């Protein structure tokens, strides 16, 4: 999932996920896409290392329409980075690329498993608790 760009000032979401976020925002389910990206990262933190790594290895291409989100908007006071550090397993492996992989993985999980016309926050909570 790495691309030869400058150190990640932006993390990039796959086009289909970015469009899905746009659509649920348009449906009035969400105020900001960043809120759900943060939730996605938190959800993905408890995934197996290999799953996250696979996601990190996927090719991401802004030329194909995958979309940038400013990491500053997502990780406002370094809280997300801190969570990744504390709950993300191998500390050495924490980076913005990692955050990008977690965001893509987590948003995808929400879209595929915890969304049916509305976001099923109760199920997301259960999923997080299940992995604790």
């Amino acid at each position, binding site marked *: 999932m790495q691309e030869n760009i400058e150190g990640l000032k932006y993390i990039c979401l796959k086009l289909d996920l970015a469009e899905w976020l746009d659509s649920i925002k348009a*449906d*009035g*389910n*969400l*105020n*900001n896409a960043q*809120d*759900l990206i*943060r*939730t996605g990262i*938190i*959800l993905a*933190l*408890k995934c197996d290392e290999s799953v996250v790594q696979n996601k990190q290895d996927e090719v991401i291409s802004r030329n194909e329409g995958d979309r940038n989100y400013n990491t500053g908007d997502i990780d406002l006071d370094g*809280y997300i980075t*801190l*969570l990744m*550090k*504390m*709950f993300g397993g191998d500390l050495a492996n924490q980076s913005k690329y990692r955050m990008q992989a977690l965001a893509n993985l987590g948003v995808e999980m929400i879209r595929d498993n915890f969304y049916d*016309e*509305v*976001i*099923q*926050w*109760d199920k*997301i*909570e259960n999923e*997080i*608790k299940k992995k*604790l």
Partner: protein
Amino acid sequence: MSMVFVELKLTNWIPYSGDQNLKFNSAHDVMNMSMIRGQNKGGKSAIIRAIKWVLYGDTGDVSEYQRPLELLNRDAKNNGDFKYSVCFILYNEGKRVEITRTMSVPGGVSIAKDTDFNEELSIKEDKNYIFGDELEGYIKKILPRDISDFFLFDGEMLQQYKGLATSTTAAKKLKIQIEKVIKTPYIKAARDDMNAIKRDLLKAVKDRTDDKQIDLLLTRLEELSIKEEECSNSLERLETDVRTEEEAIKKIESNLRNHEEMIEITKELETVKKRVTHTEHNVQNAKDIMKTQSSNAWTYLASTLIGSRRSDLERKGNELSKFIDENRTNDVLNNLYKESIGHCNLCHGKLTPEQKAHIESKLQEYSTENTSDAEIQLKDIRKLLNKISNTDDLEMLRKQPASYYSNIEQLHEYNIEIENLNKQAKSSEQKDIIDLMQQKVNCENEKKQLDESIERIFNELNGPEGIRKAKKDVDLLYSKLQKDKPIYDRNQSLLELCTKVERTLSETLENLIYQVREEIEEYANEMYSKMTVESSLTSLKINEGFGLDVLDANNEKITTSSAGNQIVAMSLLYGLKKATGLNGPLLIDTPFARVDLEHRQSMLNSYAEMTDQIILLVHSGEINEGGDLEKSIAQNIGARYNIKKESDTNSRLIRI
């Protein structure tokens, strides 16, 4: 007046194909009630229409049942039989009267148009036929159209009788109804004629007088008379317009009744649509809550994550804290050593090189641990622990999806319901109903405006400062001025005479009406107490302005329910008939349209006593066949008919 309806013979009349007979019970008997039962749109109203048509040449309807082809039975028309007729047999003042009205087309016409029909009226009194110009006059004599509303009426319209007296305008109508019944129109006509003669005389006298004062008075009188005539004409026109609107409303209501089933569906649709709106609001509400709350959901979920490792984090935090503290002591010692510059800080003695080497080696040993990483880690742990929320910020979000799905499911069910109702409802019929309802509102608004105009003009004419009062004053002044002067003109003496006669006629009118008012009130109360189920002490009062009030035991005005209104209306009708000697039959279509079961019983019992002959056109919803209500009046029912609707174009009257 003594009148009994005997028989009605219908030929190809609206829903009745071929010949149909309806024999009413004989009056002056205990069994003075006839009951004709039929379903809606089955042919009940066609009976009342037949009687009106045979008597007055039209059915009383405004927008339909006016043209011959609307009155001709459709089966007959399709079979090429273009003749229809109604024969009405009754006894009037002991004489048998047979009135027949026939419409037919000349021979040789294969496809009849409305204009092809010829009308024929025949009246036979005992064995004698009435001829020519006397025909219409004869009907006017025995049952004038003006007062036919006291004999033949639609139960739904009973409310109008209550309405006759519940407002100033309506009170005037009640007065007009009473005037009609006690034949005051004749006196009024005489007064109006006298007025016209007086106006001519005024002009003649005015032309010949030299007296300026008298000339002035006569000019004023002339002006007032013109205004009076204008107002009277306006009133007449407006009243005709009101009647037209009332007929239109009646027609619309009748049409709406024909759509009863459809109206129910429409109402149900409206209810479901309201529920849909409400549920959609709930859905939106749930979404709004979820949207607002979604901004902070992630912090709560992060907090959950941190909370799960709280004790680990706290333990690690403590360890780090301890470690940092220990290393801080070492720093102090190190500083102390540096500051001492080779001297002991306690005894101030000079340290030997061996002692220095020993202290430096010990300090080196303690300072192998770097505290900066530990401090960063501790800061991170504290930051995380501070993020643990003590409140359940996800509570609302947890509940909302369930609420959302339940409402969405409900919406789905409502939509299925709407779809089914729409399938039952013909959209064209729905549109008709909406149109009819709109027409009714328009008519009611128009009528309201007309009523207001009538009230205004009526007050202008009859009010304390009105034209008639002014005219009377000028008349008196004129008489006073003339009193001492010799009558030198024939016109002047005729004018005086006219004024006196006109005044006498006006006073007679007033007296007659007020006398009869008291009688009406007395009789109306007699019937009202019989019909009222509640053991209350309410009574009816017709006030001096001919307004009708319902009073409680303390003589305070009260309002009445729908059933109460119908009872008031029937009581008033009874009072009017009784006080004015209109002791004829009573034919009511849909008599219990707005009356509850309890009041139906009391009203039904009273109907039998109300008049010598009563004919009820009911649908089974009003009086169940063989039900308690019917059984309770079984001894009064002399004739029973069922209207059997065989098809949309053919109903049959079956005596049972």
